[in-house]
């Protein structure tokens, strides 16, 4: 296919693809967005309706409960009950006659008839009076709250009063006709189950008394202090529920909200249909079955109002009624905006496609025309026509480039014809020169072959160890240098091998010397190791001794401390003794005082006895006996005085003894203090001994570690000496094998082979021995410095672990003796 067709086609395809893809995507996004919006709207509407409905029903319940607590209701019911009894046996027909058949107002307005009492009637009915009293209030209440009807029922099931007076008025709710109606169910629910504290509800059903229209009822017990006295029941206001449900705001032209009972029947009239739908239209939907409870379920509904609609449903639970609120909208209405959008996108796409086709055709034309001209020119050039005219060489685009390239081809074709002609001339000259060169080369090859043969012969002999070979015949000029170099090499090799032989002999001698030295070193190292072991053992003993003495010193210190304590205790005892003496002195003083008193008493007694004697004497003969008694008393007094004097003397003596005792004790105390001082001095001495012993111990530990180090070094030395010996042996055998290798060669020269052979034999080592011997002193100090210590020279060892050890010992022991010891040890070391 030609490019002029391809380009417009490609452009059209690209346009269609891009526009198609983008419009499909946008349509899909738009459609899902619209769907979502509809779903959201339906959910919002259904949620709002449900909330409204629940609020309304709750209010209804509250109103009814409040009404049941209103005293007016109970009073009215009591009034009607009282009057009921005066109405005779056929109460129901009588009342129906009065208030229904004879009611001047049509059905639906019967509530306006306040009383059946005729003003001119002879008999006054109390029921009519009561009715007249309460009907306006009750009617007003029912109207204001929107109730469709209001009933007062007694405990026997008699409907005593109804606001609107349909056929249920004055009937009995226990009768077969009424039992199964919603009204009867509510009554039964309250009275039968004795429900006093909440409302009872009967769901929508067709209700015969109002012509089969759907009705729902709600009732509450009327309670007095005695218990339940009756029931009030209302007909639920369907109109108000319809008001709530008929709000179609935001649901377009087909959307609406409806209320369904549990069987799927509508219980609110649809605003979109003219006829009444209550309990007549049924919606059978899976959506309703899943929309139980308060969650909102979205789905589609077919068949209702002959349309396919989107629907959102949610449950309304109320006193046993299981209702569902549904919001729905026709799917075609919902999708209308989508169709519009699709059409707009298709129109724009078509326009774009036409535009793209026109532009691409024009563009391809502008490209293909110059290319066709160029193709024609190139075809002519290929056929050999170099006279072509090229148009469009000045174009800036790729076609211009192509034209310029074709021009280059054309010029090249013109040049090529000329070059071919020149090449033919050159080729014949070259052929002649080549033949001359081949002749010269053959001659040279022959000469070279000769040289190579003779060189190969020489090399063969050399490989057999013959170093006497020389190449005498000269080679061609270019290779003669090879021959000369060969000769020089063989000569050089000959000389070198002779030298090697000589050196091998030298090595042989040296290795013997080295082996002897190594053996010597090994022996001495062993000796050193043994000595070190002994030293170590001796050191251990010393360490033990020092430790022992250190322990002893410590023990002595503790003993001294005890002694010091004892003397301190004794000093205290002495102090106590002195105090005791003082107390004895005091006691003696006390005794002396007492004795003085006794003495005094004796003196006074004596005086008294004297006086008695005087009196007795003056009494003459009569006082004779008395005088004797007085005499006895006097003697007693004198004896006690004498005793007192003796005691006094004794006490004075004991006082003196005590004084001398005090002096002695004091002296004892002084002596004890002296002892304590001496003990302290001893303690100091022993402490210094202990410290010295500890320092010795430390010093010895250091010595021990030094000796251990030395031992290690010696072990390492021994290992090294062993290695050295092994190496020396290997060296000897190596020299021997080297000599064998050299002997394979036949050597040339006048004296050289002779000298080599003689040196290789006995005289060699003998001659070479002095040299290592002379070198020995130079080598030895190094060995000594390495720590083997087998020095025979007078030079002092520069550095050794032993010296360190000795310094340590000197430091450890300290004092004057250290110098002597160090000197002695040094001597020992040097001997060692």
């Amino acid at each position, binding site marked *: 296919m030609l490019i002029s067709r391809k380009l417009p086609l490609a452009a059209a395809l690209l346009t269609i693809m891009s526009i198609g893809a983008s419009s499909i995507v946008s349509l899909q996004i738009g459609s899902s967005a619209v769907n979502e919006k509809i779903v959201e709207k339906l959910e919002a509407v259904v949620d709002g309706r449900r909330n409204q409905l629940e609020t309304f029903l709750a209010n209804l319940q509250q109103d009814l409960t409040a009404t049941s607590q209103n005293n007016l209701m109970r009073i009215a019911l009591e009034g009607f009950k009282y009057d009921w009894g005066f109405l005779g046996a056929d109460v129901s027909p009588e009342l129906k006659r009065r208030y229904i058949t004879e009611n001047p107002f049509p059905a639906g307005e019967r509530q306006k008839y306040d009383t059946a009492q005729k003003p001119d009637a002879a008999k006054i009915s109390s029921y009519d009076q009561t009715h007249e009293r309460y009907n306006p209030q009750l009617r007003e209440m029912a109207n204001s709250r929107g109730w469709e009807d209001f009933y007062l029922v007694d405990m026997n099931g008699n409907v005593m009063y109804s606001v609107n007076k349909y056929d249920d008025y004055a009937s009995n709710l226990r009768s077969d006709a009424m039992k199964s109606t919603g009204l009867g169910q509510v009554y039964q629910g309250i009275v039968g189950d004795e429900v006093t504290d909440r409302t009872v509800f009967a769901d929508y059903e067709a209700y015969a008394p109002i012509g089969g229209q759907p009705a729902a009822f709600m009732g509450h017990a009327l309670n007095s202090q005695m218990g339940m006295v009756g029931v009030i029941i209302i007909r639920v206001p369907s109109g108000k529920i319809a008001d709530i449900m008929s709000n179609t705001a935001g649901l377009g032209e087909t959307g609406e909200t409806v209320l369904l009972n549990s069987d799927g029947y509508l219980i609110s009239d649809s605003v979109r249909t003219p006829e009444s739908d209550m309990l007549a239209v049924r919606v059978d939907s899976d959506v309703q079955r899943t929309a139980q409870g308060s969650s909102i379920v979205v789905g589609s509904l077919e068949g209702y109002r002959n349309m396919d609609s989107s629907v959102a449903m949610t449950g309304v639970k109320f006193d046993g009624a299981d209702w569902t609120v549904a919001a729905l909208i026709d799917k075609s209405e919902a999708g209308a905006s989508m169709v519009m959008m699709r059409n707009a996108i298709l129109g724009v796409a078509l326009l774009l496609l036409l535009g793209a086709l026109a532009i691409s055709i024009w563009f391809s034309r502008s490209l293909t025309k110059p290319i066709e001209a160029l193709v024609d020119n190139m075809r002519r050039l290929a056929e050999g026509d170099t006279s072509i005219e090229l148009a469009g060489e000045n174009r800036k685009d790729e076609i211009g480039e192509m034209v310029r390239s074709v021009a280059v081809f054309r010029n090249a074709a013109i040049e090529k014809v000329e070059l071919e002609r020149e090449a033919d001339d050159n080729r014949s000259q070259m052929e002649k020169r080549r033949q001359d060169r081949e002749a010269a080369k053959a001659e040279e090859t022959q000469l070279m072959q000769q040289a190579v043969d003779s060189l190969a012969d020489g090399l063969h002999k050399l490989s057999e160890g013959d170093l006497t070979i020389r190449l005498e015949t000269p080679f061609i000029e270019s290779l003669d240098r090879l021959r000369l170099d060969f000769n020089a090499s063989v000569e050089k090799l000959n000389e070198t091998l002779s030298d090697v032989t000589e050196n091998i002999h030298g090595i042989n001698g040296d290795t013997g010397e080295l082996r002897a030295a190594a053996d010597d070193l090994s022996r001495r190292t062993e000796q050193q190791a043994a000595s070190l072991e002994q030293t170590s053992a001796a050191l251990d003993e010393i360490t033990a001794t020092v430790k022992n003495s250190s322990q002893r010193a410590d023990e002595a210190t503790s003993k001294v401390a005890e002694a010091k304590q004892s003397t301190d205790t004794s000093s205290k005892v002495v102090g106590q003794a002195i105090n005791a003496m003082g107390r004895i002195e005091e006691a003696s003083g006390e005794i002396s005082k007492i004795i003085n008193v006794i003495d005094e008493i004796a*003196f006074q007694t004596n*005086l008294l006895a*004297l006086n008695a*004697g*005087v009196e007795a004497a003056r009494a003459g003969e009569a006082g004779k006996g008395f005088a004797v008694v007085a*005499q006895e008393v*006097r003697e007693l007094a004198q004896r006690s005085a004498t005793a007192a004097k003796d005691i006094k003397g004794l006490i004075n003596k004991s006082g003196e003894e005590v004084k001398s005792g005090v002096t002695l004790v004091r002296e004892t105390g002084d002596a004890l203090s002296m002892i304590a001082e001496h003990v302290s001095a001893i303690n100091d001495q022993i402490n210094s001994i202990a410290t010295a012993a500890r320092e010795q111990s430390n010093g010895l530990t250091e010595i021990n570690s030094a000796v251990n180090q030395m031992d290690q070094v010696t072990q390492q030395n021994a290992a090294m000496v062993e290695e050295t010996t092994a190496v020396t042996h290997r060296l000897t055998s190596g020299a021997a094998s080297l000599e064998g290798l050299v002997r394979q060669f036949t050597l040339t020269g006048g004296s050289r082979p002779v000298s080599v052979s003689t040196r290789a034999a006995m005289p060699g080592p003998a001659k070479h021995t002095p040299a290592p011997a002379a070198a020995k002193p130079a080598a030895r100090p190094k060995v000594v410095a390495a720590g083997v210590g087998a020095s025979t020279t007078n030079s002092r060892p520069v550095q050794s672990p032993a010296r360190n050890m000795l310094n340590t010992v000197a430091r450890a022991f300290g004092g004057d003796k250290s110098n002597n010891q160090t000197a002695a040890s040094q001597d020992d070391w040097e001997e060692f």
Partner: protein
Amino acid sequence: MQETANNNVATSGYLEIISFHLGKQVFCVNIMSVREIRGWAPSTTLPHSPPHVLGVINLRGSVIPVIDMAIRLGLPAIKPTERSAIIVTNIAGKLVGLLVENVSDMITVKNADLQPAPDVLPAAERALTKAIIPVDEQMICYLDLDALFSTEDELAA
């Protein structure tokens, strides 16, 4: 009274005396002239009294003079101690306290043992010593209190 004492001595042939010390010397008086023996108590000095009159003391309400017998007898003055005693005597109806060093004993002696004092002193002084009584190894000087007192009066006069 004096007579009574003499009679007593004469009739019974025994004499009861109270001996006392003055220094190393022992003296005695007739027991019948002694009223009471007391312990030493400080005396109230009288102004311008002779050296041997120490002062006065209160004896159960009556004031009596105290005489240092040592000074009175021409011996060195004694230093009163707790052991000193005052012998209250009745001399010619007057109570006089005699300070002595020590009352030593109450002795009964035979009249026959009384030795006259040696005739070597002037009469006045000799009158003081009625007799010398040797008891055991001691010589007791028996003082005549009346004579002592009469001399006193003279001296006082």
